[in-house]
């Protein structure tokens, strides 16, 4: 046993040798969407990893050992904020003990401060209302215009931490902006027929998408955020669908389909399973591909031509 000690010491020494780590900036993001944007802005100068998979609901992650490891080594931690990660980021930061990415450090990048949050509750917020986010709705990456704001903040922070490549980060932001300006009118034209139309959503997570493309979310399948529907709520929804002439129900791929299928069968409303994040479905690898897939989903469901 004692003979092993020198070997163990040399392994630790080797692992902690600074040159061993890659020269690139080590960026950790809480979600796949911000990882995709960081990749576009950072290019070859960054090594980026998302802590959660795009196929999972990011509210309900857990601070796993591999996350502790990744945050411990991060130069930059990019989060969505607005309480999206409230359940798991505080214990994770505590366990990872990395002063570079603690709240207040330059490596702590809360993207929610770069956008205007919608759905900010007025008056008293109580858990009796379900999962209401006191700071506003955190699903803002679903507005492509917010994607640009996120990219802007990422570009600035990358440039602060890594001034050598600041010009590259700025240039990639320009490219990001140009590509977005080229694509946004195309996307808006594809969803033009949805403009002003009432839509039903499963969870309160598409308000930004609605804002960007001009449709209205008039009701949710969940009676309160996070609370699954019961029979009487579904009956009310059937009435709402009829009176408001709602033609589409939009939902994330990870929610149960039974309620939606029941409503579709009762009313003929079209169920649109929308990828809510990069990586939510196969083939969505970049932030721009996400919106391409969202539009494709509307088309496949027959909601837009």
């Amino acid at each position: 046993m004692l003979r092993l000690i020198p070997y163990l010491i040399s392994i630790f020494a080797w692992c902690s040798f600074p040159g061993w780590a890659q020269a690139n900036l080590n960026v950790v993001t809480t979600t796949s969407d911000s990882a995709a944007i960081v990749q576009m802005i950072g290019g070859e100068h960054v090594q980026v990893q998302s802590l959660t998979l795009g196929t999972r609901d990011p509210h309900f992650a857990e601070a796993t050992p591999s996350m502790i490891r990744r945050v411990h080594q991060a130069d930059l931690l990019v989060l969505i904020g607005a309480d999206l990660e409230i359940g798991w980021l505080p214990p994770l930061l505590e366990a990872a003990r990395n002063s570079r990415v603690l709240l207040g450090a330059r490596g702590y990048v809360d993207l929610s401060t770069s956008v205007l949050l919608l759905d900010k509750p007025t008056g008293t917020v109580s858990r009796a209302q379900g999962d209401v986010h006191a700071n506003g709705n955190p699903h803002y990456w679903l507005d492509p215009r917010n994607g640009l704001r996120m990219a802007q903040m990422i570009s600035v922070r990358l440039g602060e931490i890594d001034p050598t490549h600041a010009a590259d980060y700025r240039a990639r932001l320009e490219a990001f902006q140009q590509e977005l300006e080229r694509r946004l009118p195309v996307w808006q034209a594809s969803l033009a027929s949805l403009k002003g139309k009432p839509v039903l959503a499963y969870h309160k997570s598409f308000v930004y998408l609605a804002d960007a493309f001009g449709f209205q979310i008039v009701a949710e399948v969940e009676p309160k955020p996070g609370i699954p529907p019961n029979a009487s709520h579904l009956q009310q929804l059937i009435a709402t669908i009829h009176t408001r002439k709602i033609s589409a129900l939009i939902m994330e791929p990870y929610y149960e389909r039974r309620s939606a299928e029941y409503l579709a069968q009762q009313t003929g409303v079209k169920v649109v399973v929308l990828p809510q994040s990069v990586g939510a479905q196969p083939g969505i690898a970049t932030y721009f591909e996400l919106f391409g897939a969202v539009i494709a989903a509307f088309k496949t469901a027959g909601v837009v031509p």
Partner: protein
Amino acid sequence: MYYRQLILPAAVLLSLHAVTAHAASETEIQELRDELQQTKTGYESRLKALEERNSSATTRVNAGSFNFGVSALFSAGGSSATDAELANLQAGGHDPNRNGFTVQNVELSIGGAVDPYLDGQANLIFLIDRNGETVVELEEAFLTTRALSYGLQVKAGQFFTEFGRQNSQHPHTWAFVDQPVILSRFFGGDGLRSQGARFAWLTPLPWYSEFYLGAQNANGETVTSFLFAPGEIVDGHTLIDRGGARKASDLLWSARWLNGGDLSDTVSANLGVSALQGPNATAIDTNTNIYGIDLYLKWQPIVNQRGFPFIAWQTEWLTRDYDIPGDSLKDRGGYTQALWGFTPRWVAGLRLEYADGRDNNGTDPLRDQRKRYAPNLTFYPTEFSKIRLQYNRDWAEHLAGNTANSLWLQYEINLGAHSAHKF
């Protein structure tokens, strides 16, 4: 740079393109472009303005990393065993342990950042014991360093010893209504906790690997296998008062090595080994050693809704050498439990347990052979509350008739601070 050279022609092209584009999107894009132009000229002030626009709520929540939470755990149920027998069968201080209603644990926890260097945490517990008396305990109160270099962390104060998986967990995070038998035997009804300090080192190894080394006082009612309380009787030996700590070996020393990582996109695991050494009070020079191994595995499919479905498997095995004058008592035991979150909000669980002490006479409820199996079903209306039904099938050597059947209903509420999703 390449892109920069393209900006002007691209802008010209874009504006041409925009003439043909949808009028509304043109204005929106122009607004966005203006906004970005502004942000480029004064990013910092812009950011401040946005932060202010996002109002005082953000500031309040972010500035106040001070959390206050109350959790209350109640249970009701009945058993084929009498209340006196239940006291031995359900030896955990927070176990439902009498026929009728039990207030298992009401916990007040306050915590947050003290300053840039330290975090602080205090947990006060209230419970009502078998005699109807309210008991208040300072369960934990400690500081931890926030960000020492080299992955080091110091914790100091009164805290649960980081031995194995469950000992340092609080009752409201347990997956069963009661404490595993072996933990009640080795660490007493309240779990192993005492005053002291511990170092932790998150190693730079390419997987999660952390070492813990702690020293705590070895005396007191929550240090059961060690000095414990004078006058208590262990296997016929009345515990003596060995006086205060004079040398390092009078303290309780703990060591733990925890490793973990993702085995795949869907499976994460933790494997830990722990050891304890400290004096016991059966004589002036007797020691106790406890060793343990713990494994936790969790599976979640690639697509999941609100953390469901999942399967979590947790196992601990412990052994103890408890010196007595001229001899050593050897005890061992463990449990294995599986949880299956089969649909959102619903979790089914099964725990199997075993414990025994070598050469015991079959009458000591803390050393006899015991087996217990316990299936349960939990419903979580939200993350902040739960209702749990558990059946316990006990087999104990000391018990008249050897078997007992119990059924417990547990309900829990959490107020205040958001519950932490720890692995």
